[in-house]
């Protein structure tokens, strides 16, 4: 059968950011997908040679507009390890709360995009309406809606007072109810089920071998969640990784739905246990040594390789983002799929190109 190459992207209605795929098709079946990235590569890693390690928190946070806080948190955790210091317990809890806010708004953003991709416009709008409530909480507690600016080496810049904590808890109740309403549609609507069930199946072993991370991996039954490492306050909170066994596009959607409620629960736990005390410690000296810091972003594991030689500038700063780790799975998922399923399948790994184009 003759083969045709169909270009997909870099501009496409389903892609908020530029990535290109050459889709090799036989009739309506994709037999091969060849990705190319680099359209907006920013060279942020190189900037580490010009900004001192304290200033670089601002750069790290700007790697991505969705998981911005967790980027700065992971960077700070790595630098703190090299400096041999630990942020105060209250700061660890605050980082956890803001990290979970990020996860909730990221998953709600993804749910909206997925609803839009399958033609469910009203569900898209409701998903983003709920997301606004989380963005309002982020603004109320940090002053920013996209870039929090709250994390720094040695702790955090802002605190959450008792009144703000009560407001967050009240909002969590409302957001939970709203999220139940929309996830009930995602998981129960017959048109979404037909569109996503049995599509793009990634077997458990394949997902692991391909180096998948985050919801893409957990939807194939692998209970891996870097929060289990116990960084920030996660070691003192109760939770289990959300998994699904099916490994299809619907399972990847379901994992993200369930993780919204898990994050709401973690915020409640953190607010119930947060200790009083300082929110930052004094930082002295320059980092020396090498460490790979890891954290669980909404899209999965992020790794920061930090190499320092005792000066104020790092020698090397390298980020491996979750989207980069999930690209091989996306290529594998597209092999053999129907051409009409490509947009939904690309979305199910929740690609973040700005992260990848750091």
């Amino acid at each position, binding site marked *: 059968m003759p083969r045709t190459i169909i270009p997909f992207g870099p501009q496409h209605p389903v892609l908020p950011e530029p990535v290109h795929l050459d889709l090799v098709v036989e009739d309506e079946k994709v037999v091969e997908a060849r990705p*190319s990235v680099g*359209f907006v590569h920013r060279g942020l890693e190189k900037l580490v*040679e010009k900004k001192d390690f304290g200033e670089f928190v601002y750069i790290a946070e700007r790697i991505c507009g969705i998981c911005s806080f967790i980027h700065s948190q992971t960077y700070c955790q790595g630098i703190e390890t090299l400096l041999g210091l630990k942020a105060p317990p209250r700061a660890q809890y605050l980082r956890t709360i803001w990290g979970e806010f990020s996860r909730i708004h990221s998953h709600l953003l993804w749910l909206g995009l997925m609803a839009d991709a399958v033609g469910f416009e009203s569900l898209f709008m409701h998903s983003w309406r709920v997301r606004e409530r989380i963005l309002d909480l982020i603004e109320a507690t940090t002053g920013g809606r996209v870039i929090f600016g709250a994390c720094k080496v040695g702790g955090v810049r802002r605190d959450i007072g008792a009144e703000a904590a009560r407001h967050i808890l009240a909002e969590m109740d409302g957001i939970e109810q709203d999220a139940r309403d929309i996830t009930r549609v995602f998981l129960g609507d017959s048109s979404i089920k037909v569109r996503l069930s049995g599509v793009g199946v990634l077997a458990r072993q394949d997902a692991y071998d391909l180096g998948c991370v985050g919801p893409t991996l957990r939807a194939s039954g692998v209970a891996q969640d870097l929060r289990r*490492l*116990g960084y920030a306050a996660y070691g003192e909170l109760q939770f289990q990784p959300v998994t699904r066994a099916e490994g299809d596009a619907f399972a990847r959607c379901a994992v993200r739905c369930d993780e919204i409620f898990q994050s709401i629960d973690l915020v409640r736990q953190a607010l119930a246990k947060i200790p009083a005390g300082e929110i930052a410690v004094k930082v002295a000296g320059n980092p020396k040594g090498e*460490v790979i810091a890891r954290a669980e972003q909404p899209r999965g594991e992020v*790794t920061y390789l930090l190499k320092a*030689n005792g000066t104020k500038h790092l020698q090397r700063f390298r980020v491996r983002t979750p989207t*980069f780790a999930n690209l*091989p799975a996306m290529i594998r998922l597209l092999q053999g799929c129907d051409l009409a399923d490509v947009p939904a399948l690309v979305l199910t790994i929740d690609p973040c190109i700005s992260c990848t184009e750091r």
Partner: protein
Amino acid sequence: MTPNDQTLEVIPLAALLDRTRAMREQGCRLVQICATRLSDEVELTYSFDREYRMSSFRVVVPAAEASVPSVSGIFWCAFLYENEIHDLFHVEVSGMAVDFHGRFYKTAVKYPFGGVKPTAVAGSASAAND
């Protein structure tokens, strides 16, 4: 197990494939491959994880005409990291499962971190005085 439960070992280039294969046989997953440009050399750090424990090994190759064998025959997903290392650091990687022939990244400057090192970086005498 802690967030910093990790090991790093420098190995000779000749041992790269055998050590990578051993990681695969132990049930590890490939977490990342990172290139770091030194003044005359390139460090390549291969990191693996199994049950939240991270192990890394490192090979160091001369920056001029740097070349390493691909590990994508062992960990298929390695081809992305290897294409990145080729396009940004000008390290030739032989035998990649998927070879983009230098078109994976579209940078304005070809091999921005490869070739002759354009400027002094942190670690140089001036930076050490900061």
